[in-house]
């Protein structure tokens, strides 16, 4: 029922070399004789290398991020043995490293590769061609490792998003209620992970439907897990038969006890819809009001705003009884991502679409089918914004099945 797309774009992460680019090599070697020799060998290979030399780790440090490959002597005055390698990898995890060892400490070379160097060379046993090949291979191998690492990260993020998605967007419990629910969830631009929008629906006794939509506001990674917690808490409260008057208070207590930062709060709209009578009792906690759609009539429900959850626990949020109309109505719930985009691509002064704007859009919905309406609305909001919206969007449309 929900469309969720999360992609991680690897295109902008430039790794390795582009065609024709010269390879920048930093040689860290304290012995001037050895340094001269390595430079001569690289020159002899007639390969496209630019070589810089640093005699100490301190001298090398500012240059590490500027180069493709480090040739590292393991006997520096300010970093001996593998310590030098560890410092390089810590300061510049993306640079390829070839260590240089003497004949007597070749074992250090294997240990260096185990710790993250791409290769090792024993001084005095390699010619220009061998050295230049080792440098190129090291750069290529590092690039391949980095790509694999990024891919693994992106796979992990997608798996994480899929888990959260299941948590945020459940299968509604319709319990014999004759209605369809159509929904979409779109993560905002620039996000690898889902944000904190959530919704749910629970039917009761064939005529009542409890609806929830909400949005955890705050920073980044904490939002989605908190959204899952709030949705599940709401479901448990409703299933346990807790009186409606107490549900938002209890939800707020869950939020306050589960959040990790005082600046995290949540906006929520809850509705108990009586499908037989065409009425709804709606409470808002800082959330924009649901919109009733019935033919030409498109209007936000006139519900008194209630305070967002998590700011001042204990403030009452009384319900407003709304008449939805004769059969043929639909009820639209959404999160603020839908209305916070620009009013037009070139709107002056950052004017936003707003509730009025989305009502206008709905008046021109033409023959859009209920099942397509959430996705159509999101596309319209993006069109007005002139591109993808920065915030997440969740849209939920309640569409009672006509028995006529």
């Amino acid at each position: 029922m929900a469309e969720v797309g999360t992609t991680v774009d690897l295109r902008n992460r430039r790794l390795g070399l582009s065609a024709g680019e010269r390879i920048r090599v930093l040689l860290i070697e304290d012995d001037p004789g050895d340094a001269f020799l390595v430079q001569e060998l690289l020159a002899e290979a007639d390969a496209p290398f630019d070589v810089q030399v640093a005699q100490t780790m301190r001298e090398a440090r500012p240059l590490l991020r500027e180069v493709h490959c480090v040739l590292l002597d393991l006997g520096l005055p300010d970093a001996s043995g593998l310590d030098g390698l560890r410092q390089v990898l810590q300061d510049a995890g993306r640079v390829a490293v070839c260590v240089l060892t003497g004949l007597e400490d070749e074992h250090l070379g294997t240990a260096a590769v185990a710790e993250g160097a791409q290769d090792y060379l024993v001084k005095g046993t390699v010619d220009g061609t061998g050295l230049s090949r080792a440098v190129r291979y090291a750069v290529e191998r590092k690039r391949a490792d980095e790509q694999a690492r990024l891919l693994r990260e992106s796979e992990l993020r997608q798996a994480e998003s899929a888990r959260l998605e299941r948590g945020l967007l459940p299968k509604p419990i319709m319990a014999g209620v004759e209605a369809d629910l159509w929904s979409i969830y779109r993560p905002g631009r620039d996000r690898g992970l889902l944000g904190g929008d959530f919704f749910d629906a629970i039917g009761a006794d064939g005529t009542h439907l409890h609806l929830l939509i909400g949005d955890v506001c705050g920073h980044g990674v904490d939002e989605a897990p908190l959204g899952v917690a709030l949705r599940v808490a709401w479901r448990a409260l409703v299933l346990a038969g807790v009186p409606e008057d107490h549900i938002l208070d209890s939800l707020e207590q869950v939020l306050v006890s589960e959040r990790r930062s005082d600046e995290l709060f949540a906006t929520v709209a809850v509705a108990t819809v009586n499908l037989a009578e065409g009425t709804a009792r709606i409470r808002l906690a800082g959330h924009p009001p649901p919109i009733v759609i019935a033919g030409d009539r498109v209007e936000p429900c006139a519900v008194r705003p209630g305070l967002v959850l998590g700011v001042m626990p204990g403030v009452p949020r009384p319900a407003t009884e709304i008449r939805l109309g004769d059969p043929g109505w639909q009820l639209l719930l959404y999160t603020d991502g839908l209305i916070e985009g620009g009013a037009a691509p070139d709107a002056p002064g950052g004017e936003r679409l707003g509730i009025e704007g989305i009502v206008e859009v709905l008046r021109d919905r033409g023959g859009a089918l209920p099942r397509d309406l959430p996705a159509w609305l999101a596309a319209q909001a993006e069109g007005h914004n002139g591109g993808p919206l920065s915030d997440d969007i969740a849209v939920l449309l309640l569409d009672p099945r006509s028995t006529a």
Partner: protein
Amino acid sequence: MELSLSTYDSGDHTVLEVGGEVDVYTAPRLREKLVELVETGARHVVVDLSRVEFLDSTGLGVLVGALKRLRAVNGTFGLVCAHERLLKIFRITALDRVFSLYDSVAAATAAVGSDAEPTA
């Protein structure tokens, strides 16, 4: 659109002028600035939102955080917000009942420190 921040003193009050867009990307800078003001001893803080084009929920969170921080040290926190577009956000979230909103810096600095009624 960038976020602009500048402060000046007005009697007992520290006025923080905010301009541009306060959103998920720029809100951390606003938070830092407000934390810094309280840490360096400001107790009567007025945030002038007159030149803010857009304020999203992350930005609201930062303002709520600042309000709590100042209450914890017996300070005061006022917001100057005259534009309908921004007032609408405070009404939807009902945060207009939590913050002291004023329609000018003069009104805010005159009221802060007393329990005078907000004017906006």
